[in-house]
């Protein structure tokens, strides 16, 4: 229990520090928002007045604390460009990004588990070698490049799937699914390569364990023993790997959103950066970074809770 509390304290501390870093970084951006807002013929007096109006003249720490206070109560401030609530701006986009990350994770797992297992079991055969080589290559391919070719093949040549865009699923679940297939595939392919390589190593380890031999000795086949005993043993450490990969996935999603014109957090972030909309930039970056930290924390805790061998120490 004490350990968990210490972990929690560290977690809270890292959230705080991350928010401070982000606030400092965005406030350090040159390209004064006031003059950008006022356009091309603004007078210095008007710019100064606008800075006061936006509260940019007050001390850094005061502004930081006010912002943080708002964030904690769910208010990320208002956009400097269009005066809209940042929370309202982020919320619908968070959903798109969430789908991408969620399905990207599930998709990559669904791909990686059989592929990695196959590569491990057949590692001394040509087909197993080819599969590991393919995953090694998949690791080296930029996700957006894969995305571009997926579009060319499936959207333009074959016309099976939409090339981009997004339909919320309460409008049409079928369209929603169709629009997500290509981006999720592009994300999953690369992600699956990372995970499948981990699965391969982990499965090879399992193949050498005594409990695997025991399972075989009571009558399981290789695949059956892996499914029944191998998977549950690697799933815990796999969870850690997948959790740590979420950061990569979130970033991959930023570029993939760009390729497929998806209205997620990443494309909104890029727009806000070009508009110098500081409040939106720091809001989105904070959401992304906190999400990564939260997932890392949860994975850490889950690891303690799920592994029966560690259970005694954790409680």
């Amino acid at each position, binding site marked *: 229990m004490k350990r968990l509390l210490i972990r929690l304290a560290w977690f809270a501390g890292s959230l705080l520090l991350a928010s401070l870093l982000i606030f400092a970084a965005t406030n350090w951006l*040159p*390209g*004064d928002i006031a*003059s*950008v807002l006022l*356009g*091309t*013929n*603004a007078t210095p007096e008007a710019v100064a007045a606008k800075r006061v109006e936006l509260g940019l003249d007050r001390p850094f720490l005061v502004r930081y604390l006010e912002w943080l206070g708002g964030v904690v109560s769910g208010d990320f401030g208002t*956009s400097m*460009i*269009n*005066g*809209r609530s940042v929370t309202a*701006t982020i919320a*619908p*986009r968070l*959903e798109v990004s*969430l789908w991408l990350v*969620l399905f990207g994770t*599930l998709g990559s797992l669904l791909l990686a588990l059989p592929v990695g297992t196959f590569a491990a079991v057949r590692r001394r055969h040509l087909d197993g070698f080819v599969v590991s080589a393919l995953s090694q290559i998949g690791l080296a391919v930029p996700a957006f490049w894969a995305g571009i070719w997926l*579009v060319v093949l499936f*959207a*333009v040549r074959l*016309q099976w*799937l*939409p*090339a*981009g*865009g*997004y339909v*919320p*699923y*309460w*409008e049409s679940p079928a369209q929603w699914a169709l629009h997500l297939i290509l981006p999720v595939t592009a994300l999953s392919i690369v992600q699956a390569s990372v995970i499948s390589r981990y699965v391969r190593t982990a499965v090879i380890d399992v193949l050498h364990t005594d409990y695997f031999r025991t399972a075989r000795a009571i009558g399981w086949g290789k695949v059956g023993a892996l499914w029944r005993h191998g*998977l*549950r043993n690697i*799933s*815990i450490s796999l*969870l850690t790997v997948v959790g740590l990969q979420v950061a990569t996935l979130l970033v991959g999603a930023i570029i993939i959103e*760009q*390729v*497929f*014109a998806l*209205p997620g957090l990443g*494309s*909104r972030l*890029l*727009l806000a*950066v*070009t*508009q*110098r909309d500081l409040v939106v930039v720091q809001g989105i970056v904070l959401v992304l970074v906190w999400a990564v930290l939260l997932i890392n924390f949860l994975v850490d805790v889950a690891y303690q809770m*799920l592994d029966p061998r560690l259970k005694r120490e954790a409680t």
Partner: protein
Amino acid sequence: MRVRRIIQLLAVLLAAVMMVSCSRPSGGSSEPSDQGAERKVLEVGATGEPAGMDMITVDGAGTPFVLLYNVYETLVKLDAERNVKPLLATEWEMSPDRLTYTFHLDPQAKFADGSPVDAAAVVASFQRIIDGAGTGQVKGNFAPLKAVRAVEDKVVELELHAPSNYFLLSLTTPAGIVVNPAADVASLNETPAGSGPYQLGEWEPGSKVSLVRNEQYWGTPPHYDEVNFRYYADPNAMNTAMLSGQLDIISNLTVPQSIGQFADTSKYTVHEGVTDGEVLLSFNNSNPALAKREVRQAIHHAIDRQAVVDAAWGGKGELIGSMVPPGEPWYEDLSDTYPYDPEKAKELLAQAGHAQGLTLRLRVPSLPYAPPAARSIQSQLRAVGIEVEIEELDFARWLDVVFSQGDYDMTIVAHVEPRDLRMFAREGNYLHYSNPDFDKLMQEADEGDETAFVEKQKEAARLLTADAPVDWLFLLPNIIVTTPDIDGVQADQTSLSFDVTLLASSR
């Protein structure tokens, strides 16, 4: 059981997300499900997003593109042939001393909330600008306006400082919109209040702006019930969306190289026209080297403009030699003034004292045409001994550094405002260019009679070309791709508006 537990956890998570998403309000009446399949919806692909909804105070072409003539109306409007036509005003007259315009408003005209468009509304709208509101461009357009008065309920009088031929045209720009005086000025940036056939529906910054039909519209109702402007950060994504049938119109193809994708005439109609967007290689005329006319002219001679168009814009786009697009009455073809002649360029550079070479910074915004044009120009200028260092800035930063602070040697940008020959006369322009002779000609043109308006501007344009304060690279083409069933597309873009009221579908 751990695996199963993890799966359960994921399932619960998924369900939670679904529930959260489901409970979101689903956009009111704009749902297609509400009124069945008869609703006519137009999906428009676009690239430049509005930064805000108040055209008076927000810079950039994105806002008028969506709102002008669709949501907001002006007293008068330019048609496809650049003639001034009635809109809110049925007729108007000018006093003999050309200092006063009197506009008679359409008695039917009313705002979306049902209140009438009367003289008081015009006064309120214009007075806001006279009182100092508005972007530099808006204020520039209304600079000649001295006072605005309501004569009768539906008659309004505009008094000018001096006669101005430009003023009537200025009334067709965003500066001339008539805003519902009942609306709170501070809220205009989110909720426009106009008299046009559409009202602003949903606005999702970064992805779409939707217009819904104004059911109370006073004039001829438009064909479409709903128009969605879908924004694409990457123009290629817009093309693929069109190819996969998600769009009805690409409002302006910004990857002309890809026009071949729409060659199938049974599926697509391509309209190629012109815009008022002159793509300029702008010089900082206060730079010691570029202050010399010989250097500027040398650069003109050093650049093969057709090669620039070919590389940067797929060969689409007319070559122009001045700030006047073809179609204007004062247009003259000056594109041969500086033929491509690297030897001549080297000579001129030597004359100016730069025989041993010259290094210049080229700071370009990250807009589709600028970086590729920069790459092409860099290679060509190197051939005559000018080393070019390219720096790409995102648009906000470019506006700040180049456009506002004037900190650059050369830049590339399109000037899309109609009739922007005037900008060279504007004080404190980002080109650091000032030529009293040119200013005088422009003033004479603005204040003179109709002949003077045309002739003096011709003269001014020639003077400008000879002085070469910028290199006019080419005129941006207006390439609109539609599905074949859409009628009413205006090929040439003569205003800042994407006027959807003209469009109809034979479907």
